[in-house]
């Protein structure tokens, strides 16, 4: 067991984790942050994407102890109460959500991209979300949503 402390969605927090626990297990089971999903468990699908120090990582491949002293953001961070982030708004508007299973991970990759690039080209957006699989949308409306959000 390790005692770790970190910043989670804007608040300082502490917990104990096993050395073999993944960041995904910790966030889902200990903090009930259910936005991150498991689609493969081996770093291939991106459904578990969260931000570690503002960089997207696969929570299924990241050990929980790595969070120690870091800043972690999940899709829950994007909305405050019923107030949602412009990126979430544009996802809804563009029809970027079908089954929605990939959506939280996709949002986090897009959020990280927009942090670094104010006006990304479509090519940059596609690259930015290329680690996130979506089987429903064909990505086109997702790219549109990110492009629209970048305009705001």
């Amino acid at each position, binding site marked *: 067991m390790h005692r770790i402390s970190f910043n989670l969605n804007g608040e300082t927090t502490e917990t104990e984790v096993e050395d073999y626990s993944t960041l995904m297990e910790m966030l889902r089971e200990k903090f009930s*942050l*259910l*936005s*991150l*999903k*498991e*689609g*493969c*468990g*081996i770093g*291939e*699908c991106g*459904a578990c994407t969260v931000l570690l120090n503002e960089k997207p990582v696969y929570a299924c491949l990241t050990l929980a102890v790595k969070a120690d002293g870091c800043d972690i953001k*999940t*899709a*829950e961070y*994007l*909305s405050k109460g019923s107030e*949602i982030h412009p990126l*979430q708004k544009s*996802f*809804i*508007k*563009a*029809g970027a*959500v*079908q*089954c*929605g*299973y*990939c*959506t*939280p991970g996709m*949002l986090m990759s897009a959020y990280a991209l927009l942090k670094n690039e104010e006006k990304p080209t479509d090519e940059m*957006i*596609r*690259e930015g*979300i*290329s*680690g*996130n*699989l*979506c*089987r*429903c*949308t*064909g*990505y*086109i*409306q*997702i*790219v549109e949503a990110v492009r629209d959000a970048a305009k705001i």
Partner: protein
Amino acid sequence: MFVGKDIERLDALEKVMGRGVFAGDLTMEGMLFGVLIRSDKFHAKIRSIDAVDALSTPGVVRILTHRDIPGRNGFGIIKKDQPYFAEEHVRFPGEPVLMVIALSERIAREAASKVRIEWEEIAPVLDPFEAANSKVSIHKGGNLLCHKRVLKGDVNRGKEESDVIVERTYSTQRADHVFLECEAGIGYPDPSGRIVVISSTQNIHYKQKEVSQLLALPEDKIRIIQAATGGGFGGKLDVTVEGYAALGAFYTNRPVMVRYTREESMLANTKRHPLYMSYRTGAKKDGMLTFVEAKIVGDTGAYASYGEVVALRAAVHATGPYQVPNVHVESSMYFTNNPVCGAMRGFGIPQTAFAHESQMDLLAEGLNMDLLEIRKINALRKGSTTATGQVLSHSVGFYDTLKCVEPAWKSRNKKDNKGFGLGCMFYGIGNTGVPNPSGCHLTLNPEGKVTFHLGACDIGQGSDTALTQILLETLGIEKDSLELLKGDSDITRDAGSSSASRQTYITGRAVYEAGKKLRSYLEEKGIKKGRPLREICGEASRGGRIVFEGYFDPPTTSLDPDTGRGVPYATYAFATHMTEVEVDRSTHTCKVKKVHAAHDVGKAINPSSTRGQIYGGIAMGIGLALMEEFIPLKSRSLYTYYIPTSMDMPSVETYLVEDEEPTGPYGAKGVGEPALIPQAASIMNAIKDAAGVRGYELPCNFERLCLLAQRDKK
């Protein structure tokens, strides 16, 4: 007011907030976890099972096998031939043998790894041609699942009249659904002693029947609720985890969660049928088709699932969307020891489209004709007769879809490694030649709202939203005056499965019917004279519950078993895709650059959603054409089975043709499967244009493209 508008998805807000509750997200007091132990053999007898170590693992609650099944150890949409747990034999790698139930998932998996099964291997049958001649019989009745035939006119006469005849054989691969959310469900006993299952599913009422047979309990003792479902594409039509979760709850009297990892999902879920299609197609000098003769052989894997439907659909659609005077199609489906193939987006038609669209191009080449022109000449139109003898009297917008892509086709600029290809399709909406009704009902609640009871499963395609739009349009009320109750077998009528692109059309019409009844009631009660809805609802609910029912069963007939003649579908969707590719001749890779996709959808209830279906279909078509191939025991994860990423997507131009279907709600038909069907075909034709080589096998991945190029050099 609502129909034809880009209304935002009803479930999008909760999903962007990460609050969509999928089955695997559920937790319940005292919840246990079930993990299945599966065969890793293609074909074997079970000699012995040693579960002593597993059972003595601390935290293990119970182990279940076929002996623990109180009712029928068999499920399947048509034949109930697939066991929940193998009895003496296993017939494919991935077949479940037993289940460990434990306090945590980790313990259950650890215990599962300790189970030792001793096998006596039997020679497996691995392809349908072998199955046809093998002495090894996979099932008692032999290896043939079914044989379907479609006959029209006289193909010999057709041959005599032909100026050109093209004869080729095509084959397609086994493919995995890769819905992003793997199968998951939780079963629990409710206080009244019933068994409830909440799961990721495409059809709640069918699963209620299956679970009732499994547990030997009456149907009203079983309740199935749909959780948010992360894609289905046909793979969540068959019983997946529901039986196991229910059985676990039945024996432990506690909630039991069963959720598959991706590896388990790939072992367990049904696949797209590999088809082998030998075609002979003829045409006259002027391009008119004279005959189509096709022999289709399919591999349905170890159990029947939807194999019969795929064989029949492939036969009925074998000509493609063209008028063909003489047709002879033989379509057979064989059992093998491969993974079970079932329903997957398109039900065999993406496969036949690859064949008939390649044939069209080959004919045009033989006649020195334009590739679009030959399709225009032969296009099904109003008044045409299909291969099954059905006269198409309405909503036949195929020609218009060809016209939509015509400007792009005429101005295409073929150079160097670039190439352009066409792919066309028609697709019968709903089940094939069998009744397939949908029901729904509306009530008025005391808070002054209309309650919409909907049994159709939204699996991401957006049916909740589209059906709500249909209802609001019919009622002429505002969105806030409606409350949607859905996906629960207790409170909804059977709306059939979310498959065969049928929900918008069939359930949509049922919703329209219910809406019309309620509307005339509201008018009778003075809504038009300004009496508020709230008041009418209040009054109605005080006087007892009034139910407004809607029901629709599309007008079809059964097909003659010898000739396939009849009216299998009440309506058809049509589409044309034009695809531009670039083939890199040094790396043998193909990149899809641009797709023009024209679809006759009857009426786009929600155009943004309709486009979303088309984009998603194109992505899946790219996977089918260029990369996806499921190889049993090798394709074990997303590391060994690739699906398209954002980098594989072309830019897409969509064209919506709205040739309204008179029996559909506001003219709507369906688009879910049509979106995918012509895509692989158009890519294959484009590769021919770009690289001068024609592929006859899917997927046309790097290895196959390389081989084609080498052969071409020789």
